C-alpha cells in the first residue's frame, strides 16, 4: 500500500487533550491507509479514542486540544501543512465529510431539512440556492428520502428519515470520503438494516469511501472491507474483514469477538475481565497487557507493529 495510491494515508497521528490531571492520550500514534471506494471500520469500546480519531482527521478540535501532530495525506497531499482556513475551505466537507454521532438529533429544529442539507453545498461549492436545492433532491433520491420531504421540518420526520437526511448532508458536496460516527446506534433493527443498505448503495453508485466508527461489531460487518481495532488510543490490529471476522489476531480482538452475541449458531459468550485503562496514565508496555490472558514477560515493553499475512497487529505474540 503506497502513499500515492491510497485515498487517505495517516502516519503517527497524535491528539492529546489537556486536562487538569495531565494530558489525555486519546489518539496516540495511529497509522493507517484507506483506498478509494473502500470502507474501513474502526471498532473499539467507549473511551478508546475512536471518536477523537475522527475529530483528529477532520481537524475538529475542541478547545482543550493539546498535542496534535502526525501526517495526514489525502490523495498524496499532506493536509496537516494547510492552515486552518485553507483546511476549512478545501478539505472539510469538500473532500472529507462526516456524519457525527447522533446527527439525526442535531438537525436545526426551526429550519426546513432541505435548506439544512443545501447549506454545505452553498458554503463549500459556492453554488446558488436553486442549484443547491436541486442537488439536495438528487441526494435525497440516493438516500431514499421522498422528494417532498425537502420542505419539512425535522420534527415531522421519523428517526430513520432524519438519519438519512444527515447522510444526505454529508453527501451533498460529493466528497470522496465520509466519516460515519456510530451512524445507527440509536436506531431500530429494521431502520438500521435500511440505513446500511443505503450506505452500501451509495458506495456502489458513487464510489465513496467510508470510515465507519462503531462499537457494534456485528452490524459493522455490513459495510466492512477492512477492520481496525482500537484500544486505549492505539490501533492494535488492522486487516481485511474476511480474515478478521474469521480469526482475529490480537488477544483483545479475540476477546471482543467472543463477547458479541450471535443469532445464528450458539456460541459461548465471554467477557473481558477488568476495565480499559485511563488514557491519562496508560500502562507502560502493551496497554492491554493487564487484562490479557496470553501475557508474558515481553509485554512490559511497547509491542512493535508486526505485519503478518498482509495484516498488522501490535502484539508480542507474533514477533
Amino acid at each position, binding site marked *: 500500500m503506497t502513499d500515492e495510491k491510497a485515498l487517505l494515508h495517516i502516519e503517527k497521528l497524535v491528539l492529546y487533550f489537556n486536562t487538569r490531571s495531565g494530558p489525555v492520550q486519546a489518539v496516540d500514534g495511529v497509522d493507517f491507509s484507506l483506498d478509494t471506494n473502500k470502507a474501513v471500520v474502526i471498532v473499539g469500546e467507549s473511551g478508546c479514542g475512536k471518536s477523537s480519531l475522527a475529530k483528529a482527521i477532520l481537524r475538529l478540535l475542541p478547545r482543550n486540544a493539546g498535542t496534535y501532530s502526525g501526517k495526514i495525506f489525502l490523495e498524496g497531499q499532506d493536509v496537516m501543512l494547510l492552515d486552518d482556513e485553507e483546511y476549512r475551505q478545501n478539505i472539510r466537507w469538500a473532500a472529507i465529510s462526516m456524519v457525527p454521532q447522533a446527527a439525526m438529533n442535531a438537525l436545526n429544529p426551526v429550519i426546513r431539512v432541505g435548506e439544512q442539507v443545501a447549506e454545505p453545498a452553498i458554503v463549500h461549492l459556492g453554488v446558488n440556492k436553486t442549484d443547491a436545492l436541486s442537488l439536495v433532491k438528487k441526494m435525497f433520491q440516493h438516500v431514499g428520502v421522498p422528494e417532498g420531504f425537502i420542505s419539512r421540518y425535522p420534527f415531522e420526520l421519523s428517526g430513520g428519515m432524519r438519519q438519512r437526511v444527515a447522510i444526505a448532508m454529508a453527501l451533498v458536496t460529493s466528497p470522496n470520503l465520509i466519516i460515519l460516527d456510530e451512524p445507527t446506534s440509536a436506531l431500530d*433493527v429494521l431502520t438500521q438494516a435500511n440505513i446500511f443498505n443505503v450506505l*452500501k*448503495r451509495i458506495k456502489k453508485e458513487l464510489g465513496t469511501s467510508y470510515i465507519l466508527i462503531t462499537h457494534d461489531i456485528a452490524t459493522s*460487518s*455490513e459495510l466492512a472491507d477492512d477492520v481496525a481495532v482500537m484500544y486505549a488510543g492505539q490501533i492494535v490490529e488492522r486487516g481485511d474483514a474476511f480474515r478478521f471476522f474469521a480469526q482475529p489476531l490480537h488477544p483483545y480482538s479475540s476477546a471482543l*469477538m467472543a463477547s458479541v452475541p450471535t443469532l445464528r449458531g450458539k456460541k459461548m459468550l465471554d467477557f473481558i475481565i477488568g476495565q480499559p485503562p485511563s488514557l491519562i496514565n496508560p500502562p507502560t508496555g502493551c496497554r492491554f497487557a493487564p487484562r490479557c490472558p496470553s501475557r508474558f514477560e515481553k509485554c512490559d515493553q511497547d509491542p512493535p507493529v508486526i505485519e503478518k499475512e498482509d495484516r498488522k497487529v501490535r502484539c508480542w505474540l507474533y514477533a
Partner: protein
Amino acid sequence: MVEARESNAVLEMKESTGSLLSVQDLRVWFELRQFGFGHAGYVHAVDGVSFELAHGEAIAVVGESGCGKSSLMKAILALYKPTKGDIVFDDKKFSEFDTTIMRWFRSQVGFVQQDPYGALAPFMNVRRILEEPLIVGGIKDKLERERRVRKVMDEVKLHPVEDYWDKFPHMLSGGQQQRVVIARAMIMEPKLLVADEPVSMLDASVRVEILKLLRGLQQEHHLTVIYITHDLATVSYFSERIFVMYAGMIVEKASVDNLLQNPKHPYTYALLQGTSDPDANNALSFKEVPPGEPPSLITPPTGCRFHPRCPKIITGLCEFQEPPEFEPDKGHYVSCWLYK
C-alpha cells in the same frame, strides 16, 4: 387492612392459576387532547395483550421503539393504569389493589432501568441508594439494613463491598453502575424482575458480564424475569420464551429456539433478517427489509397491523380482519392469517 387480605383470599380461591403473572386482554391507551382539552383520539400503545408467566420463567419482549413494549412494562409495574383488561399478580388483581397491597406489590417487583447513570441519584452514595428501598419498606434496624446491603452487593459482585459503598454513581464505570441498579432491584428479594434494555447502553464486553449476572441471579433465586429489548441477538442467551410485539400487539409467542429457527410471522422473519451477525460476507449483499415504517398508534391500520408492509399479504383478508391467535406448532402462537 385485614378486610383487604380477606377479600383477596376469596379472590385467590376463585382464580388460582399457578402462574405468577397473568396479563388479560390488556389495553393501555393515552388520550390525546386538542388545545389542552377536547378529545382528539387515543394513542393505542398496548392494544389487547394477554399472556401468562410461570414462577421462575424468563421471557423476552422484543419489538422496535414505539411498539408499546415500554407501556406494557409500565402497566405491569403498576405505573400506568390499564384502560381495559387486568393484570393478576400472585393471584391478586391490579384493579383491586389498595395502598397496603400496593406496598407489598412494590416489594415483590424489581425494576432494572435502561440507562444506569440516569437511574441513580447523583447525590447519594451506593450504600444510601441501596438502603433507600429498605427504609421505605419499613426495615428500621440499621444493622439489618447493612447486612442486606452487603449481601446484595456481594451477589452482584461489587466486592470488596467497602471499596464501593461510599462511592457516588459518577465514580463508577457503566458496568458497575448497572450492577448497583440491579442490586437495588434485588434488595427487597422480589419475585418478578422487569429489565428494560438493561445492556443497551453498555459496551460489548461489559454487556455479556451483565447478562450473565442477571441470568445467574434469575436461576439462583428462581426469579421471574421480563427482559425487554430490541436486540434479538442477546435474547437467546437470556430467556426461555420470546414475545414479539408490533404496533401495540403481541404477534408471535414461542420458545427461543423455535422462534429463532422457525419464525412464523412475516414481521419476526424480517426482524431476524435485519439482525446482523459478525460476518464479512454481510458486506457483499443487501438486506431484505420490509418497506415503510411502523404505523401510527393513533390510527393503526385496520385488519392486521403489519399488512401495509407485509410481503406475504393475503389480499382481501389481511386488510380487513384482525388475525386471531393461531397455534401452528405446540406452544408456538402467531397472529397471522397465513396459519389459519
